[in-house]
């Protein structure tokens, strides 16, 4: 298993390089000009110099190579320095001081390092996305179990219908719908997510809780719909197997047959689906963040795209790609760990 994991880790390096090359190629082919916003009074030769200052004069392979160096060599050094210098987790280690003022990936919009902005925005996205995923899973699994156990019952029919509806309604419709109902008509919840809000006491925690309800529920609806369908399918497959009859025949209680024997076996495919769905929920967060004005990385990607901020777009898209490759790997490894029938050798 360990050799498989290591082999897959090594195999993911060319995959990531290929993906970064595709993103870079797309950005190179694009006709957008970062100098388009500069006033027309600036003479063309000055504009040319500004372009070169941004590193745009160099041939594409030089630009690509420099980006690779910056992303895979200089940024990790900055990160390790941060870990050993000011983080609470590893701050006790001696300061490493790897970073020696090399050029980092600089955003064209703000002229500050891209990774610093990403680090600022990441917590918002992680809170909303992560919580919604957990909420979605917690709702989905009991629904899946019960509707498989009472197959073709009223609950099953209703559950299947509701998950199908949840599957079909896009988040950019559920979001405004919830805002109309809960913010405008009822006035219970705020429609805009305030990222500057700091939780200090019970009152501020309540505000934080209320403003998170809607974005989390919108994202959780998608997760719930998908995972409860898988859960139901997996439970149905397992409930008809011989070992279930054996377990009942030897007099186990029904609760332990279903909740221990069947559930454990049904969780194998569901866990991998949960891992595989993680990157997709980050992608879906782009829309949800836009609806509720959450100041996360999805919103950052959109503004960077509109502002023609190519280093930011490149880095953010690549971070999404890393997430996908990473969670694919996690899903494969988990599958092998959980299911002894699967052997990757």
């Amino acid at each position, binding site marked *: 298993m360990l050799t498989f994991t290591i082999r897959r880790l090594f195999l993911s390096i060319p*995959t990531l390089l*290929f*993906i970064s090359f*595709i*993103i870079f190629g*797309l*950005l190179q*082919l*694009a*006709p*957008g000009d970062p100098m388009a916003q500069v006033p027309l009074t600036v003479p063309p030769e000055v504009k040319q110099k500004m372009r070169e200052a941004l590193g745009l004069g160099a041939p594409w392979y030089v630009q690509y190579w420099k980006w690779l160096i910056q992303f895979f060599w200089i940024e990790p050094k900055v990160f390790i320095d941060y870990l050993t210098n000011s983080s609470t987790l590893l701050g006790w280690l001696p300061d490493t001081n790897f970073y020696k003022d090399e050029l980092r990936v600089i955003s064209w919009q703000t002229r500050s390092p891209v990774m610093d902005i990403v680090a600022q925005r990441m917590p918002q996205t992680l809170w909303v996305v992560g919580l919604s995923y957990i909420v979605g899973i917690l709702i989905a699994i009991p629904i899946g179990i019960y509707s498989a156990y009472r197959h073709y019952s009223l609950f099953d029919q209703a559950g299947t*219908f509701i998950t*199908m*509806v949840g*599957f*079909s*309604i*896009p988040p*950019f*419709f559920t979001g*405004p*719908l919830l*805002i*109309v109902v809960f913010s*405008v008509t009822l006035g219970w919840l705020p429609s805009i997510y305030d990222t500057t809000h700091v939780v200090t006491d019970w009152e501020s925690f309540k505000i934080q809780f209320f403003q998170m309800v809607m974005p989390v529920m919108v994202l959780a609806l998608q997760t719930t719909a998908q995972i409860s369908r898988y859960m139901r399918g997996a439970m149905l497959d397992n409930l008809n197997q011989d070992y279930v009859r054996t377990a009942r025949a030897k007099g186990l209680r029904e609760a332990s047959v279903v909740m221990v024997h069947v559930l454990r076996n049904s969780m194998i495919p569901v866990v991998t689906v949960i891992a595989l769905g993680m*990157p997709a929920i980050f*992608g*879906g967060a*782009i*829309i949800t963040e*836009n609806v509720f004005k959450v100041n996360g990385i999805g919103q950052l*990607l*959109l503004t960077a*795209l*509109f502002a023609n901020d190519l280093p930011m*777009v490149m880095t*953010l*898209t690549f971070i*999404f*790609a890393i*997430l*996908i*490759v990473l969670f*694919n790997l996690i899903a494969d490894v988990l599958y092998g760990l959980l299911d002894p029938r699967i052997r990757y050798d």
Partner: protein
Amino acid sequence: MTEQAIPASPLEADIETFGALVDKEPQKPPRSQWKDVWDQFRKHKGAVFGGGFLLFITLAVLLGPYIWDVDPKKLDIRNKNWRPIYTLLWDSGVTAGWAHPFGTDQLGRDILAQMIAGGRVSMAVGWLAMALALIIGTAIGVFAGYFKRLDFWLMRFTDLVLSLPILPLVLLAVTLFRQPLNSRFGPEGGMFILIVSVIGLTSWMQTARIVRGDILALKEREFILAARSIGTTSGKIIRRHLLPNVISPIMVSATLGLATAIITESALSFLGVGFPSDYPTWGKLLADAVQRMQDYPERVLLPGIAISLTVLSVNYLGDGLRDALDPRIRGR
């Protein structure tokens, strides 16, 4: 009866000998596969409803402009902000009427006409992008499954594309290539080509994988061996023997593809990178209405419901098709 008296056909002899085995009733006429499929499909209520609704909405957007022939782009500022006709039920004071059954927007454009025009674009994008994805996916799946030499590289390529971040890349491509295509084909035509090709090029992977798996299994069957032994060429085997046998997984993934294509197009329009602002699509109508949804919630609800119902019916259709085309489930 002696050993030498061999009858003309062993079957007839059996029937004579074991008279009890002969059916009293006339045999049922042979049934075609598609009749079986239809019978199974009819049992799935959701699928029948879904297929019917999809047919209805397609016909509505196709024929709608001929029946409701109001120009969706005509401004009529005197008659702006009409409410839909049903608001008269509980509030007789609103401006509403049969002249504009779904009301008008802030510039006085008729919302019913806009919905029909928007539905045309959304459905056209959905169908075309789905067709493009199917063609690419089927071609790659067939080649990878049939030709052993191509298999490794095509499947590695599919895996690579599967690990691309699709929504960010689609956003990227649409924003970056908008300008050159717009100047070439006009703002509407350019955007249409761009969105269809971007969605098609990023959603063929599942089809390719399913088709490849089925082709790999079919290739080893006797009828392919028989076809090859009488000298059938590879192209003919693929067209005549393999493709008709993988039509059912292709149809199921077609429904999934249609649903995703409609949602992706609406999401792009919603995020403001889709079609130009005066060109209605369902996603665009929804996005434009979000600013005024406190006063006019119906302008968000109508396109939203249209998108959701279409996608829901397509998903149900796919569910029913999957059951109907699976011979193990059929007939149960």
